[in-house]
C-alpha cells in the first residue's frame, strides 16, 4: 500500500464526492438492491391480483402501471446498475488497475440515477398515474393515448441512457488502457471480456433508445407523426426502433452474468475454465448477432415473409454460440473436484435454469410457432428464466463469491444455502406453470383471466411470494456479514479461486494496485 495515500473521507461527503471505484461499486450495488426491492414490491402486487380470477385488489388501469413500472425498474434500476456496480468493484482489481479510467465521470454516472428513479416512481402520484403501456411502451398507446406522466418517463429514459453510456465509456477506457503490463486481452478474466463487449453494445444501442423516446416526445408535444398513420407515420416504426435497442439490451443484461459464472464455476470445480478462447468468440458472436435479430419480437406485426424468414434464421443461429457456452461450463465441471458453497449453488442454478430459458428462446425463434406463443405467458416464462434465473441468480452468486473479499468477513453458509434453495423452489413454482398457461392461451399483461387458468396462477403467485420473501433472508445475511461476519484474512478466500483480485489482501484495501502487479506469463486467465 502506498503510504502517501489517505483512506476514505468521513461521513456523507465520502459517498457524495467519491471517485473511488470500490465506493462507487458499493453504491451501485446498494442502489440496485433497493430498486430490486421496489420492483419486487410491484411484482408482488401483480401476483396478488392474479392470485385468483376476478378483480380483487387493484383496478385494471393501476395494474397496467404496476406491470410497466415493474419491468422498467427491474431492467433499468435493478439488473443493469447491479452489474455496473460489480464492474466497478472488479474490473480494476481483475486487470491490475488502481481505479477506473474516468473516476469523476464514474461518480456522476452513479449519482444521476437515484433522482431519476425517484422521479419515475413519483409518476405514480401524478394525475393519470404512472406510465401504463408496458416496459416496451408501444406507440400509439404510449403517445397519443398516454397520460401526462409520459413526458417525465421520457426524461427518465434519457437520463438513464446518459448514465449507462458514461458507465460504458468508462469501462471501455479502463479495459483498453489500464491493464497491467502483461495482461493481454486473451489473458483477461472472462468477466472483463463480457463486460467489455457489453459496454460496446450499450454505447451502440442506448442512443437508439434515446432517439426512440425523442420521437415519442415530438409526437406528444410538437405535432409530429412519427408513429401515427394519420399523419403519415407508422406505429410499427416504433417497434423496429425499440427492438433494435431492445434485443441487444437483453444481452446487455445476460453477458455480464455469463462472465460471473465463468469465474465461479472454475473456482468451485478447481479446474480451469474449459474453452476460454471459444467463450470469448461465442460472446462476441452473440453480441454481433444480437443486432440482426430484433424483429423476432415482431413476428405478428405483418412483416413481409422474406423479412420474417431472415429474422427467424438469424435468431435460430444465436442458439449456436449460446450452446457453446453452456457446453463449456458443463465441461468445466466434468472431472473437476466439485464443492457446493452458495456461489456454486447459484451458478449451477443459473446453468440449469438459463438453459431452460435458452430452450424456450429457441422455440420462440420458430416464427410459425411464435404466432401461438407471442404475447402470452409462455414469453413471460421465457424471459424470467433468462433474466431472473439468469441475471439475478448470477448476481446473487457474485455477491456471495466476492463479498468476503470486499469486507473481509465470511457470510453464513447455512443461511446462504437456505437462500438458494428457497429461491430455487420459489422461482420454479412461480414461473414454470406460466409455460402451461401461456401455451393454453393466457395472454400476458392482463389483470384478470379465464377460470381455466386459475390453479396454475395461484401456484405461480405462491411461488412468487416465496421467492420474494427469500430475498429478505439474503438482505439479512449480507448485512449480518458486513457487520459481524466471521473475519477472513486469506487473500484467496476460496481455495479454487484464481485471478488478480485474489492476490491482494483481504479485505480489499481502499486503494489497490497502485503499482501494477507482475503477471505470470505462464499463468493464463483465471
Amino acid at each position, binding site marked *: 500500500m502506498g503510504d502517501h495515500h489517505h483512506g476514505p473521507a468521513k461521513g456523507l461527503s465520502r459517498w457524495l464526492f467519491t471517485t473511488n471505484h470500490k465506493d462507487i461499486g458499493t453504491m451501485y450495488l446498494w442502489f440496485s438492491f433497493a430498486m430490486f426491492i421496489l420492483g419486487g414490491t410491484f411484482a408482488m402486487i401483480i401476483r396478488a391480483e392474479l392470485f385468483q*380470477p*376476478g*378483480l380483487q385488489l387493484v383496478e*385494471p388501469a393501476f395494474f*397496467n402501471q404496476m406491470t410497466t413500472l415493474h419491468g422498467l425498474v427491474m431492467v433499468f434500476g435493478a439488473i443493469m446498475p447491479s452489474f455496473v456496480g460489480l464492474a466497478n468493484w472488479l474490473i480494476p482489481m481483475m486487470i491490475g488497475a488502481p481505479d477506473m479510467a474516468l473516476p469523476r465521470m464514474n461518480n456522476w454516472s452513479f449519482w444521476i440515477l437515484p433522482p431519476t428513479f425517484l422521479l419515475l416512481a413519483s409518476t405514480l402520484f401524478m394525475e393519470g398515474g404512472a406510465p401504463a*403501456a*408496458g416496459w416496451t411502451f*408501444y406507440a400509439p*398507446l404510449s403517445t*397519443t*393515448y398516454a397520460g401526462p406522466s409520459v413526458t417525465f418517463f421520457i426524461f427518465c429514459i434519457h437520463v438513464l441512457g446518459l448514465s449507462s453510456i458514461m458507465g460504458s465509456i468508462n469501462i471501455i477506457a479502463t479495459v483498453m488502457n489500464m491493464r497491467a503490463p502483461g495482461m493481454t486481452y486473451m489473458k483477461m478474466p472472462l468477466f472483463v471480456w463480457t463486460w467489455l463487449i457489453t459496454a460496446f453494445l450499450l454505447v451502440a444501442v442506448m442512443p437508439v433508445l434515446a432517439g426512440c423516446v425523442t420521437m415519442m416526445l415530438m409526437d406528444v408535444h410538437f405535432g409530429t407523426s412519427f408513429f*401515427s398513420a394519420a399523419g403519415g407515420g*407508422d*406505429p410499427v416504426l416504433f417497434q423496429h426502433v425499440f427492438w433494435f435497442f431492445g434485443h441487444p439490451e437483453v444481452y446487455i443484461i445476460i453477458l455480464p452474468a455469463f462472465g460471473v459464472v465463468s469465474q465461479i464455476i472454475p473456482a468451485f470445480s478447481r*479446474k480451469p*475454465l*474449459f*474453452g*476460454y478462447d*471459444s467463450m470469448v468468440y461465442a460472446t462476441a458472436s452473440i453480441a454481433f448477432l444480437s443486432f440482426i435479430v430484433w424483429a423476432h419480437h415482431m413476428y*405478428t406485426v*405483418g412483416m413481409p*415473409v422474406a423479412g420474417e424468414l431472415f429474422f427467424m434464421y438469424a435468431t*435460430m*443461429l444465436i442458439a*449456436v454460440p449460446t*450452446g*457453446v457456452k453452456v457446453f463449456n461450463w*458443463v*465441461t468445466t*465441471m466434468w*472431472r*473437476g473436484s*466439485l464443492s457446493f458453497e452458495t456461489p456454486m449453488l447459484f451458478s449451477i442454478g443459473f*446453468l*440449469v435454469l438459463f*438453459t431452460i430459458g435458452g*430452450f424456450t428462446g429457441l*422455440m420462440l425463434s*420458430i*416464427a*410459425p*410457432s411464435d*404466432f*401461438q406463443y407471442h*404475447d*402470452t405467458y409462455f414469453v413471460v416464462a421465457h424471459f424470467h428464466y433468462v433474466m431472473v434465473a439468469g441475471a439475478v441468480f448470477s448476481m446473487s452468486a457474485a455477491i456471495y463469491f466476492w463479498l468476503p473479499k470486499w469486507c473481509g468477513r465470511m457470510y453464513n453458509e447455512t443461511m446462504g444455502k437456505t437462500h438458494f434453495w428457497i429461491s430455487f423452489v420459489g422461482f420454479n413454482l412461480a414461473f414454470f406453470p406460466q409455460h*402451461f398457461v401461456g*401455451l*393454453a*392461451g*393466457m*395472454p400476458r*399483461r*392482463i*389483470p*384478470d*383471466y*379465464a*377460470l381455466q387458468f386459475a390453479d396454475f396462477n395461484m401456484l405461480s403467485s405462491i411461488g412468487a411470494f416465496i421467492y420474494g420473501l427469500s430475498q429478505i433472508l439474503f438482505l439479512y445475511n449480507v448485512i449480518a456479514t458486513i457487520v459481524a461476519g466471521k473475519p477472513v484474512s486469506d487473500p484467496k478466500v476460496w481455495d479454487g479461486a484464481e485471478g488478480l483480485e485474489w492476490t491482494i489482501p483481504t479485505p480489499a484495501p481502499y486503494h489497490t494496485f497502485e503499482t501494477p502487479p507482475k503477471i505470470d506469463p505462464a499463468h493464463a486467465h483465471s
Partner: protein
Amino acid sequence: MCFEAKRLLKLALGPVLMLTSAVALAYGPEVNQVNMAPGATDVGEQIYDLHMLIFWICTIIGLGVFGVMFYSIIYHRKSKGAVASHFHESTKVEIAWTVVPFLILIGMAVPATSTLLEVYDNDDAELDILVTGYQWKWKYEYISEDGENVTFFSNLRTPQSEIRNTQPKGEHYLLEVDEPLVIPVNTKVRFLITANDVIHSWWVPELAVKRDAIPGFINEAWTRVTTEGVYRGQCAELCGKDHGFMPIVVNVVSSEAYGQWLGDKQVEAAAIRELMAQTFTLDQLMERGEGVYARACLACHGANGEGGVGKAIAGSPIATGDVGPHLEIGINGVPGSAMQAFGGQLNDVDMAAVITYQRNAFGNNMGDMIQPIDVYNHKKG
C-alpha cells in the same frame, strides 16, 4: 319495437344456437391445460407439430447436458475425494458441438419455413372479413360483393358483477361475447385486420391466427376451420385499461347455417335502415330503449338508473337537462372515463331509443323524445 328487435335477434341466432348446441362442441382452453392445442385447422396442426418437434429436440439435448452435469455433480465431488484434472480445451469437441447444433437447426428450419409460407398464403379466400380493434371491443364487417355488408360489434358479455366477485363466475368467464363472429366450416376465410385507436392483436389459438391490428394499416391472415364449434380467444396486445376484457368468440357452422345466418343479418340490416327513416312514438322509443339500456348500459348505470361504475342516470343533470349534451355523451362518451363512445356501436334507432329511455325512465320525466334523425344530425355535427 323492442319485440321486433328481439324477434330479429332470435331469427338471426336461432340456427346458430341450435346448431352449436346440437352438434358442435365448445372449444377454448381446458381446465389446467398444459400444452398448446393442435386446434381445428391444418395450419394449426402443422404449427403444433413444429412446436412438439422443437420441444422434443430441446428435451433430448437438455437431458444430455443435464445428465453430464449431474453426473459430475454426483461423482466428481471434492467430498468424495475427486481430484481435478486440468484439461481446458479440445478443438475437436468444440468444433463438434458447434457444427452438430447448427445441423439440427437446419433440420428445424426446413419445416418451419414451409409452414410459414403456408401461413402467409392469403390467396384465394372465399370470404373476407374486416376485423377492427377498438378500445376495448372488436368490430366485424362481412365484405360481400352482392347484398348488404353486415357489420356488428362484439363486446365482452361477462357482467361486472362476476368480475367484481359479487356473483359466481360462469363457465366462459371473460371468454364470452354478446355477438360472436360466425364463419362457415371448411372455407378459406381471410381476415383483414386493423384498429381504430391503438394496436390490438386478434388471436384465436385454435384457429392458429394471431395478427396485430394496427391503426392505419391492414394486415391479412387466414384460416380454414375443419371442425364446427365455438372457439374462444382474446386480444393479445396490450391496448390500455381493459385489454384483458376484449375476448373473441368464433362460431364455426355449416355452410347452410352460415348462409342462413348471413341472409338474416342482411334482412336485419335492411330493416334497421328502414327504421332509421321512420318517426316513432314515445311508447315505441321507450320500449325499444328499455331493451337497449339493458343490453348496453345497465352494467354500469344500474337496473334502476342508480349508477355503479357509471354515474346515476336517475336525476342526473345530464339526463334531465338539455338534449344536446345528453346525446353528445351517448354518442361520443366521456374521454378518459369508462363511458365509451356508443355512436359507432349502436345504430341510430337504438341510440335515439336509449337516450329517450334515459330521459323518461327512473323518474326522469322529461317527456321529450329523440328521433333517429336527431342522432343522425348530431353525428353529422
